[in-house]
Structures are given as C-alpha cells and as structure tokens.
C-alpha cells in the first residue's frame, strides 16, 4: 500500500492549546480523506513550543541543533503540511515566523499546505489570507483555498468549523495523493545547472 506523509506544525504556546486542537482535527480529517482513497498515512506533529529555544539559537548561530534539524527534515520531506498558528496582534505568532525563517528558503517549494489559525475573536479570521497566505506564496508553497480559522467561540457552538476543516482537508488530500515529495532523493550537493568551477562568461 502506498504511504503519504503528512506533517503538522502547531505554534500554540500553552499546553494544551486550541491551536494544537485545531491542528489535530485538520490532520485527522486529512488522514481520513487519504485513507478513504486507499493510502496509508503517517502523521508527524511538531509543536513549536518544544523547539522554541532551538529556533532562537538557530537564528543567533545560523545552524540548527540536531533536534531541530531532524524536526525540520521531517516537515520539509512530507507530502503535505498543515500549518496552524495563533493570531497575535493581527498576524501569525513570532515563534511561527521564526520557525519559517530558519527553514531553507527553497525547502517548501511546491509543498501542498493547508493553513489554520486560532484567536480570541472571529474578527481576526482574515489574518490567514493577508498574513499567512502571502508568506507561503513567497516560499512557492501551494496553499489550498480553504483556510480554517477557529475563534474561541467556535469551540462552543455550531458555526460550521467542522465543515471548514473537512473542506480544507479534502483539498489538501487531493494534492497529497499525487505528491512524490516524501519519496524524493535529495542531493544536498547538487550544483546549480550550468555551474562551472572556472566561471561562465569569458573567464576560461
């Protein structure tokens, strides 16, 4: 049976957090959608809180600790990614952005991503579209159209949160189904096309 790897990044700061709760529900829905198509699914979840100091150290020193390096590797080699952050002061959290900042800028090229966010008030729901989506567009990731925003009130009333999760999950599962990212052999020493050790134009 063919396997698809789903990575989840949750930037919630408390434990337990509503951000993790939303991330888990999006992951479960995506896994179910893929399993319905006959895939085996492996879900890896990274709570950024667990590597928060490593992320800061990476920003300062320029290199990831072995723990962070393996976490990054498991994220960037997945077939699809679910990224969920709390919205602080109208945007993704600082920790979330710091984590994105330590990734290789090419690491998410072509990565299918479903975006999720949590907040105290539903008035921040568009933050997914004006802050998260451009970030991943810049990184050449493929974001699915449905972003899932969960305000505190969504956890206590029927506001269609479940439907939004299902819709985002089915969009992501469709992309993950045709992804070969987790099967790719990566060559860290691949030279850019046309590279010559003596230079190009006229320098021979």
């Amino acid at each position, binding site marked *: 049976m063919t396997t698809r790897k789903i990575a989840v990044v949750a930037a919630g700061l408390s434990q337990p957090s509503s951000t993790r709760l939303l991330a888990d529900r999006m992951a479960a829905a995506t896994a179910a959608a893929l399993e319905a198509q006959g895939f085996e699914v492996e879900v890896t979840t990274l709570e950024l809180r667990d590597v928060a100091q490593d992320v*800061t*150290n990476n920003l*300062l*020193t*320029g*290199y990831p*600790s*072995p723990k962070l*390096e393996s976490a990054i590797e498991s994220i960037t080699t997945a077939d699809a990614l679910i990224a969920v952050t709390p919205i602080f002061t109208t945007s993704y959290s600082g920790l979330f952005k710091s984590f994105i900042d330590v990734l290789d800028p090419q690491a998410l090229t072509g990565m299918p991503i479903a975006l999720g966010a949590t907040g105290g008030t539903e008035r921040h729901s568009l933050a997914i579209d004006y802050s998260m989506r451009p970030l991943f567009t810049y990184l050449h990731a493929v974001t699915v159209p449905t972003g899932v925003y969960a305000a505190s009130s969504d956890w206590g009333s029927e506001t269609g949160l479940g439907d939004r999760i299902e819709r985002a999950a089915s969009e992501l599962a469709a992309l993950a189904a045709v992804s070969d990212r987790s099967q790719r052999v990566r060559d*860290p*020493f*691949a*030279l*850019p096309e046309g*590279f*010559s*050790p*003596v*230079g*190009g*134009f*006229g*320098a*021979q």
Partner: protein
Amino acid sequence: MQFGIFTVSDVTTDPTDNTTPSENDRIKAIVAIAKKAEEVGLDVFALGEHHNPPFFSSSPTTTLAYIAAQTSTLMLSTSTTLITTNDPVKIAEDYAMLQHLADGRVDLMMGRGNTGPVYPWFGKDIRDGIELAVENYALLHRLWTEDFVDWQGKYRTPLQGFQSTPRPLDGVAPFVWHGSIRSPEIAEQAAYYGDGFFANNIFWPKEHYMRLIGYYRQRFEHYGHGTAAQAIVGLGGQAFMRTKSQDAVNEFRPYFNNAPVYGHGPSLEDFTEQTPLTVGSPQEVIDKYAGMREHFGDYQRQLFLMDHAGLPLKTVLEQLDILGEEVVPVLRKEFATNRPAEVPDAPTHASLVAKRDAALVTEAETAEVAS
C-alpha cells in the same frame, strides 16, 4: 600535519571587567600572538579580513609582512581573503609581494565574506557571491600561473597582455585553500583546481562538515589530482584550557555567553557538545581533536581560534603556551600514528617548487622520448 591559530581580528569588550581594547591595542596584540605562536612551536598563523567595525584587519598583507619580518618559521595565511570584493589583480600582486618578503612562508584561504553591506561598499552584490568567487579566482589563478594574461569576465574591466608583478617567488604561486561553511560550489571549485579545502568547523555540528569534506574529497579524485584520501583538508577548532577542567569552564563562560556570533544563544554545554569547541583540561582538548581524523579522514592542517570574544592578551598568551607545549606535541604523535603513507603533508613553498621541478623533468624526458 600542521597546527596553528586563526583569528577574526575582532575588537570586543572583555565582559568580565567591561574594558575594551583600542584598535591599536588589538593590532599590537595580534603581532604578539603571532610571535608567540612561533615561539611555542605552532606552524601557522592565519589572519581574517574585514571592512567593518568591530574588526581591525582590513589590510592583512601589511600585518602579515610585519609579522614575517619578526618570525622565521611561521607559515602566514589568511582566514579568509575576500575573493568576492577584492580585485583579483590586487590579490595577485599583494600576496606575491608578501610571498617574496616572507621567503615563501605564505599561503592563503579564499572566502566569500558574509557581511551584506561590504559587497556594495566595494561595488558588488552579495547575490553574486558564488559567481564572484568563481570568476575572480579563475583570474587570480591565471595571473599567478601565466606570465601574460588576456582576460575578459563579467565583474571587472578586461585585461590585454597584463602581467602582474612581482611574479610569484620561484615561479610558484602560494598554495590556496578555499573556505566554505555550506556551499558545494566552493568545494567543487577547490577540487577542480586541486587546491585545499578548509572547513571552518567551529559554528556548525561536525556531521555537516563531514558531508561537505566527503564531497570535496570525492570531487578531488574525480578531477584527477589523486585519491580522495590525498585531498588537502584543513579544519578550524576552538579551545579554552586550564589544568582543572572546571576552572576552564568558569573562566571561559562569561566570554562564551557574550561572544559575537553565538553569545546569548545556546548554552556552553550545548555548544561544546554540538561543535568542536572544547573547554576543559588539555587532555580533554587532546581527546577531542585526536578524534577528528575518525570523522574527517587524515587531514593536513588544524587551526584553533584562541583570541576572540574579548579574551585579554595575557590569557591568550597563556592559552598558546598550553596549546603549544601540552596539546600539540601529543596531537602530532597521535596524528602520525597509523597515518597512511599516501596521505600528503600540507603543501609548502619548498614542496610546491619540488613538485614543479619534478613535473618539468618528466616533461623534458617525455619530449626526449618523443624526438
């Protein structure tokens, strides 16, 4: 196997007493440190190049020539020479001059430099860093190996019939190392020319450098310069020592915690576990560095960073005494044990002249047979 020290030439406040040396203090200290390196039996002194505070070393050949005049065996090198923003013609001239004055005790290490504004200050763009390193070195290499050069490239004005002077000492260019932290292009370049590859090694975990050096060795063999085991590899390192391990930790910790680059980041304990930095007794340093060949293969040059982060001159000189008297003699024995015969020593001026002469003899014999 060569052992030595390298410095980035930072002027940093001593965090233990909040005093900052003047540029003049640090410049004079560097000379004292280099002379001490020779006195305690080290082989190499390498000086960085920077064009922004808090670094003083904008003019390395001036400093190295001054040191050359006061030493007799010390090999003078750089860590690194900015191949991106310097004019390769000026590098060819300056270092050939230094090579003459120092009687051949000169090699140099090419680096790109990672300070963004330095590029535009010198009319360049950091996004062209790799291309600049490749093209500029291609020209430098020709200026040192060909008497008259016609040349056209993308990054400097063309040359017609140009001869850089002085010609390299005995017609043999200084040996060149290429330093890189992460770029396979630079490892490829070093391999292509059969030049040395230096892995700074002090800021990243060793696994990263093991892969990079493995790649360089493989490409060195590919380009026909010898076997992978014969590739010329240098490594950076970092140590702080006292007789009692805990004394070293206590004394070094404030310097570590406030150091440029990694200060206020990982703990000393994490950093010593993840990188070659060793803080402890001389025996701990011996154990850590004797193990390097297990990871990187037998190599040719080990440089230590000993004088940064505001350490006072007196302390640095004490550290050099320990390094030269207690650590390096043991490491020399360790590295000589079971070193395969095919692994060469680091090239020196004498060995490069001998190699060139041998090649000329072979060429003459081949010509004779042909005629």
